[in-house]
C-alpha cells in the first residue's frame, strides 16, 4: 500500500500546495486541461462528459473533446487504443480545446503512452496512473508498466500511482465497471467541484437504468472523492464566473440535430457514416416526438435522392453525411441545383481523401462543397464556427434553401461534432419554422421556371398545386420545364441559377473584424478554427502585436467588404485545416505551390497576396500553434 500511493510527491508545485491541519488549500487557477483515458469500453468518455457537465453547471467555461480510437474494440492496453475525453476547464468562456494537457487520469500505461507520443501533454503534466499493473500476473505487463512509469518520471512528468481497481473492489465486485466514477470522484475533489452536483449528474446519466445502477456508481464517486482527499496532497480551484442566463450544453452534432428540430424540417435522410452519424442517433431518438422521420436509406445516393424527393414534394429536407458520403451525393446534388429544389446537405468533415481518417478533424471539403458536381452547379456553402453556430446554421440553411430554391451545404467537422461547449439557451421563434406546404393555385400563365430577370428567382411549383403541373427534369430546360434543345435556352437557365447566388450575396453583412480594423497582419479562417484563432489573436494583441482576425461563415457566396478589410493590413494569412504546400520544401515555389482552400479562393477573387498556413494532423488546431505562426509572420527570422 505504501508503495502504491504517493510514489512521487508534487515537486515544483510544493510552494503552491500548503496542506493545513488536515485540510488541503486549493490552488486557484484560471484554467486547466484534463484528460481521462482508458481502453475502449472502460467508461473514460462518460467520466469526462460528466466532469464537463458538472463544471458547466457550476458556471465554468468548458470545452470537451472526445478522444476516440479508430476501432470499436481495439486490443486492450494498446498505444493506439486510447479512448476518453479531454476537458478544458476555465473561469472564462472557453471557445476551443486549447493547447497541451495539464492533468491526465490513465487506466493503463499503454493508452497513456499514446497520448504522450501525440505531443498533447504538457512537459510537466500531472499523471494519475492506475497502479494495478505493477502486480499483474503476467511479468511482461509488469515490465512494460514499470519501464513506462520510470521513463515518464525521468522525463519530468509528475506521476502519481493510484490503486483505483483495488479501491473500487472494496465497494463493487466488478471494478472494471465503475472505475470511471471513482476517477470522477477524484477529479471532483482535485478541482473543488460540488460533490452533490456530481451525484445528481450520475442520477441523470443512469436515470433510465434505475436505482440499482445509480447507487453503486454514486458509492464509487464518493469513494474516489474521499480517497483523493485523504491521499493526494494537492487541490485546485477554477473559480466559476457564473452564468446569468440558461445555457445549453451539447456537442456539435447534437446541436445540428436540435437545429433540424427547430427548423421545422420533417425528414432527415441519411446513411451511417463517421463522424456525422451521432447527429442522426440523437435525431432518431427525438425526431418522431415532433412528427419527424429519420430515414436510414440503403446508401448515400439514396439518402440524397430521397431527401430531394421529399423536398420536391414540398417539405424542405436535410441529408447528413461525412466526406465519402458527400462525394457519393454529388450527382444528386447537381439534380437539386438543376431542378431548383431546396435541399440542406450537412457534411461533417473528416480526414480525406478516400476513407482517410474517419474520426479525425479536417477542413478538406471546402472546394468540393463549392464546386462539386459536374457542370456549373452554384450552391450555398456555410460553415458553423462554434457549437452554437451548429444549431443556428441549420435554421439559416433551411430558410435560404427555401427562399432561393437552392442547395445549402453546411460544413461542420469532426472537431465540432464531438466537442461540447455551453451556449445560451435558444429562445423559440416562429420564424425558425418551415411554412406549411404551399398548395395554392398557380396563377394562369405563370411558368414553372419564371426566372426573374434581375435575381433569377422563380416561384417554386409543388405537387398538389392546381395549375402547376409540369415535369421537373435534370435535363437543360426552358421556363416551361421543357427539355431545351436550344443552346440559347441552356445559357439563360445557367444565368438564372447563377444570379440567385448574387441575389443572396446582396443580403449578407460584412463579417466583423476581431481586433483592430487595421494592422500588420490579418488572420482569416472559416469553420471550427474560430475559437483558437481568436484566442491567439487576443493574447498577442494584449502583448502589443498588431494582429486581427476575420472569420467567414458564408463561404459561397462571400459577403462584400472582405477585400477592403484585407487591404487595411500589411499581410494576410489564412489558418486552415486543409493541406497547403510549404515554401520550406525545396521543390515548392510560387509556380507550383498549392494553397489552402480559402487562401486560393481569396487570391483568385480579390487579387490579394494571401498567404496560408495549415495543419492536417487530425486534431483541432491549437491556439499555441497559431500564435507561433502569427509571430513568425510578424517577426520573420
Amino acid at each position, binding site marked *: 500500500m505504501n508503495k502504491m500511493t504517493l510514489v512521487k510527491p508534487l515537486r515544483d508545485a510544493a510552494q503552491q500546495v500548503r496542506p493545513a491541519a488536515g485540510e488541503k488549500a486549493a490552488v486557484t487557477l484560471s484554467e486547466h486541461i484534463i484528460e481521462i483515458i482508458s481502453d475502449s469500453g472502460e467508461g473514460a468518455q462518460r467520466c469526462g462528459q460528466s466532469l464537463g457537465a458538472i463544471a458547466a453547471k457550476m*458556471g465554468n467555461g468548458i470545452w470537451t473533446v472526445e478522444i476516440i480510437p479508430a476501432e470499436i474494440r481495439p486490443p486492450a492496453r494498446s498505444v493506439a487504443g486510447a479512448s476518453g475525453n479531454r476537458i478544458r476547464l476555465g473561469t472564462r468562456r472557453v471557445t476551443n480545446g486549447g493547447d497541451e494537457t495539464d492533468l491526465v487520469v490513465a487506466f493503463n500505461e499503454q493508452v497513456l503512452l499514446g497520448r504522450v507520443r501525440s505531443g498533447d501533454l504538457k512537459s510537466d503534466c500531472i499523471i494519475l496512473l492506475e497502479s494495478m499493473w505493477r502486480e499483474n500476473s503476467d511479468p511482461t505487463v509488469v515490465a512494460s508498466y514499470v519501464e513506462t512509469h520510470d521513463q515518464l518520471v525521468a522525463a519530468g512528468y509528475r506521476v502519481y500511482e493510484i490503486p483505483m481497481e483495488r479501491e473500487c473492489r472494496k465497494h463493487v465486485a466488478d471494478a472494471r465497471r465503475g472505475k470511471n466514477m471513482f476517477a470522477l470522484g477524484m477529479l471532483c475533489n482535485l478541482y473543488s467541484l460540488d460533490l452533490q452536483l456530481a451525484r445528481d449528474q450520475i442520477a441523470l446519466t443512469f436515470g433510465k437504468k434505475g436505482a440499482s445502477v445509480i447507487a453503486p456508481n454514486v458509492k464509487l464517486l464518493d469513494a474516489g472523492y474521499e480517497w483523493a482527499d485523504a491521499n493526494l496532497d494537492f487541490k485546485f480551484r477554477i*473559480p466559476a464566473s457564473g452564468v446569468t442566463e440558461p445555457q445549453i450544453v451539447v456537442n456539435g452534432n447534437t446541436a445540428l440535430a436540435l437545429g433540424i428540430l427547430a427548423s421545422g424540417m420533417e425528414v432527415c435522410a441519411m446513411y451511417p457514416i463517421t463522424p456525422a452519424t451521432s447527429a442522426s442517433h440523437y435525431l432518431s431518438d427525438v425526431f418522431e416526438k*415532433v*412528427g419527424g422521420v429519420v430515414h436510414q436509406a440503403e446508401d448515400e445516393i439514396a439518402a440524397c435522392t430521397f431527401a430531394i424527393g421529399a423536398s420536391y*414534394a414540398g417539405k424542405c429536407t436535410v441529408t447528413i453525411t461525412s466526406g465519402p458520403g458527400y462525394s457519393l451525393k454529388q450527382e444528386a446534388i447537381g439534380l437539386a441545383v438543376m431542378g431548383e429544389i431546396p435541399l440542406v446537405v450537412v457534411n461533417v468533415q473528416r480526414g480525406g481523401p478516400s476513407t482517410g481518417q474517419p474520426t479525425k478533424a479536417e477542413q478538406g471539403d471546402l472546394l468540393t462543397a463549392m464546386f462539386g458536381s459536374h457542370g456549373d452547379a452554384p450552391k450555398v456553402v456555410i460553415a458553423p464556427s462554434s457549437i452554437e453556430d451548429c444549431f443556428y446554421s441549420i435554421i439559416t440553411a433551411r430558410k435560404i434553401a427555401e427562399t432561393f430554391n437552392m442547395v445549402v451545404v453546411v460544413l461542420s467537422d469532426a472537431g465540432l461534432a464531438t466537442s461540447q461547449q455551453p451556449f445560451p439557451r435558444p429562445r423559440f421563434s416562429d420564424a425558425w419554422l418551415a411554412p406549411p406546404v404551399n398548395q*395554392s393555385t398557380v396563377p394562369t400563365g405563370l411558368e414553372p421556371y419564371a426566372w426573374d430577370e434581375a435575381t433569377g428567382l422563380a416561384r417554386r411549383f409543388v405537387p*398538389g398545386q392546381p395549375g402547376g403541373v409540369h415535369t421537373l427534369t435534370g435535363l437543360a430546360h426552358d421556363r416551361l420545364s421543357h427539355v431545351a434543345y436550344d443552346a440559347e435556352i441552356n445559357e439563360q437557365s445557367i444565368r438564372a441559377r447563377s444570379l440567385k447566388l448574387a441575389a443572396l450575396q446582396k443580403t449578407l453583412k460584412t463579417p466583423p473584424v476581431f481586433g483592430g480594423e487595421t494592422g500588420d497582419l490579418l488572420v482569416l479562417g472559416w469553420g471550427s478554427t474560430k475559437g483558437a484563432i481568436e484566442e491567439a489573436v487576443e493574447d498577442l494583441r494584449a502583448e502589443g502585436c498588431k494582429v486581427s482576425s476575420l472569420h467567414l461563415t458564408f463561404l459561397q457566396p462571400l459577403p462584400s467588404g472582405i477585400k477592403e478589410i484585407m487591404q487595411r493590413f500589411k499581410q494576410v494569412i489564412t489558418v486552415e485545416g486543409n493541406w497547403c504546400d510549404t515554401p520550406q520544401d525545396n521543390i515548392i515555389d510560387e509556380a507550383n505551390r498549392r494553397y489552402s482552400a480559402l487562401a486560393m479562393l481569396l487570391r483568385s477573387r480579390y487579387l490579394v497576396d494571401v498567404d496560408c498556413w495549415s495543419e492536417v494532423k487530425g486534431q483541432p488546431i491549437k491556439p499555441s500553434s497559431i500564435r507561433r505562426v502569427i509571430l513568425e509572420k510578424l517577426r520573420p527570422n
Partner: protein
Amino acid sequence: MNIATTDCLLRMYDEQHELEDYESGVPRWCTGCGDNAILAAVQRLCRDENLRPEKTVFVSGIGCSSRFPHYMKTYGFHGIHGRALPVAEGIKMARPDLNVFVNTGDGDCCSIGAAHWIHAIRYNMNMTVMLHDNQIYGLTKMQASPTSPRGLKSNTTPRGSYLEPLQPLTITLGVQNVSFVAQAVDWIPEVLYDILSAAFHHKGLSFVRILQRCPEWLPKLYEPWVQDPQKILLLNHEQGIQVSPNLAKVYRNLESHDPSNMNRAREISSVLDPIPVGILYRNPDVPCYEDLRHAGQPRSRNFIKAGLEAEFDKFTVWPQEAERRGQAV
C-alpha cells in the same frame, strides 16, 4: 411567399377528366416502341380512376422509358439515372396524399439502380412501379443490359454478351416484404391495362415488369412470342386478372393461378418460355413503410415548440442552479 391557402383543399363539385387531360405533347419515342402502348394504358387508367392531375406524380430515372413523365399532363420528376425509386420514396414519405408512379427501364432499375430496387421492395411504399424491360440500352444506342439474352450482339458485346440475363421477377419475389408482382407485355393492351389497374389499386409497392419492344435496336427480339399466342401463359384467377372470353379465344394457354401462392409464383416466374403474363403475387397485408413511420401527420407550431423545449430542458444549465453551486464551493 409560401402561404397555405384553402382554395384547393376542398372541391365542391366532381371533376371529370378526359383522356386529353393527361396527354402532354407528342411522345418522341420511335414508331412501334412499346413505351407508346404503356403510355396509352396509363393515360386510360388515370382517366378511369379520375386521378387529379395535380395530385399525381410520375417519377423516372434516365433512359428512353424515363421520358415517360414528359408525356403525362401531371406532375412529373425526370431525375437521374437509377434513382427514380428513392426520389419517389421521398415524395411518398413527405406527401402520402399524392398518387405516385415510377417508370424505369431495365438499365435504370436492374443495373445502375439495382440497390434501390431491392430496398424499394422491402420498404413497400404505396406506389406503382413499371419496369419497361426492352432488354437493351436504347437511349445510349444499343449496349447489352442486365436483362439482355445471353449471346446478344450489341455495341459493347460485338461477339455476343457473355452472361445469362438477370430475371427481374424471380429477384423481386425473393425480397422480403414483396407485396405485388406482375408481368405484362406491351402487345396485349387489354391485359396490360388490367394489370396496371390492379397494381394501382394495390396498397403497397406494385412491381409490374412490362416486356416492351424496341423496334430500333431489337426489332425481332419478341417476335416469336408476338406471333404465337401459345407462347404466352396467361394467369387467370378471380383474385388476379380475369381474362375476357374474346381474349381467351386467342390466348388459350391459361393457368388459374392464385396470387397469394408464393411458391407457385416463384415457379412461374422462373419460366422464360412461354412468357407468363398476369399477377404472379399479391399480399395486401404487408405494411407500408410510410404508415410504419406515420408519414403525413399534421404538426402544429405548438407541437414542435413543445417538443423542442423539452429537448432544450434536457441540456439546460439554469443560472440559479449554477450560481448556487458556484457559491457553495
